[in-house]
């Protein structure tokens, strides 16, 4: 479902990711972990078609992002960090708008809007302006938007980063319920969350893959007791380093 092979991205003089490779199969949740500036968001932006890779191959649901970006984007649901939504639209208006952009048929769209609002507990807020929603409900609207078109692949960039613990617990329950037959790529700084939700994790350090496997495998390979200890040991370079690696 998701396949990244030797992904490299260069921004001007900065090498954001280099040779990143991993995969996520159908029904699998893969956690993308790393310190700030490790290349998580860049990798996600490549896989969602927001930015092209400088080199390497990215495939989503069988579509190569370099040659069939539109096809890949049609099959992907994306929740960017902090769910940047249109504050001046209602929740159902937002879903209808993106459904139209995704060329969903009128009847299917109407049915999916109702189903999605119901699934995310947003029915009572369907006519509420996004700008009037709490952060937690805005995040729910973001989730609803990501799955509206029933994508094969779901990419979630730090979905619990800017919400309170209660809302984060709700969001985690939502992520669990969204798995089904999809591949889910989840970026998070919460290692307990990663251990709880992810079948496998990929740890990025300075734009490269530092470790990959189940949380238990990663911990064992690093000689650590758990994922948190393993992460601290593996991501140390970034914690000291800063954003990206400069080209020599």
């Amino acid at each position, binding site marked *: 479902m998701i396949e990244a092979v030797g992904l490299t991205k260069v921004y001007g003089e900065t090498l954001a990711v280099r040779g990143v490779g991993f995969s996520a199969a159908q029904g699998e949740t893969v956690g993308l972990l790393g310190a700030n500036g490790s290349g998580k968001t860049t990798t996600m932006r490549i896989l969602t078609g927001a930015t*092209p890779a400088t080199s390497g191959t990215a495939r989503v649901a069988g579509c190569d992002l370099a040659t069939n970006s*539109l096809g890949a984007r049609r099959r992907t649901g994306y929740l960017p960090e902090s769910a940047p939504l*249109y504050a001046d639209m209602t929740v159902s208006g937002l879903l209808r708008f*993106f459904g139209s*952009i995704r060329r969903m048929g009128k009847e299917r769209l109407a049915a999916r809007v109702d189903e999605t609002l119901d699934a995310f507990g947003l029915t009572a807020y369907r006519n509420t302006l996004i700008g009037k929603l709490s952060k937690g409900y805005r995040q729910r609207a973001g989730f609803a938007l990501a799955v509206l078109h029933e994508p094969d692949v779901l990419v979630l960039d730090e979905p619990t980063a800017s919400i309170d613990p209660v809302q984060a617990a709700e969001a985690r329950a939502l992520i669990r319920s969204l798995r089904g037959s999809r591949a889910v790529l989840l970026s998070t700084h919460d290692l307990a969350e990663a251990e709880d939700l992810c079948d496998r994790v990929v740890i990025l350090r300075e734009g490269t893959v530092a470790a990959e496997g189940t949380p238990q495998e990663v911990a064992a390979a690093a000689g650590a007791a758990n994922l948190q200890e393993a992460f601290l040991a593996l991501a140390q370079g970034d914690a000291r380093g800063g954003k990206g690696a400069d080209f020599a």
Partner: protein
Amino acid sequence: MRSAAALAWKETRVYYASPVAYVISAAFLVISGHFFVASITAPVPEASLRGMFTPLTFALVLWAPIVSMRLLAEEQRLGALELLLTAPLRDWEIVAGKFAALGAMLLGVVLPTLVYAALLFRYAEPDAGPLFTGYLGFLLYGMAASALGLFASSLTSNQIAAGVASAVALLFLTLAGQAAGLVEGAPASLLEWASLPGHYTSFVEGVIELRDVVYFLTFIAIFLFLATLSLEARRWR
């Protein structure tokens, strides 16, 4: 094009859901009414809208930046552009959708001025030809100004900066004809050619010159192309 139409419809709805749309339309109607009254009460009054159309182009120098500045800049600031860039939508469709919405916004300020044309037909016998060409020219002028504004909005996430940049550029292109009188030779010819009002005058006089139509359509195409390139470049940043 369905996706672009959906985007245009959304932008138009958001615009007309705001009181700002009606304030702008009302202000435009008042300004055009002022010029209309001045023209029909002049010492030698004439049954045409020529006296309204010509000075009204200066209103476009303000109108176009105000309505276009937020269209892409605000999306960039909020991060919402990421949602469009990751949707199955081509960059030119984003630009086309926004531009079509600007067309709907332009109609929102132009259509109410038809009341002055109606008054002319009620109380005088105006020549319909120059009225038609005047409106055609004004719409082309407005769409050209909108295309420039949209391009400016694609360049930055600061909508005020986008608005100021497009207002300055439009003011320059509006005054270029006058500036041509201050220089000689090739620079004068260039300024005259670049002048937006210079290509608008014939419409107001009731003549549709092919070169003027081509100028406006080329102007629009160039700035929409540049806005698309600017969005594409954003993907690489």
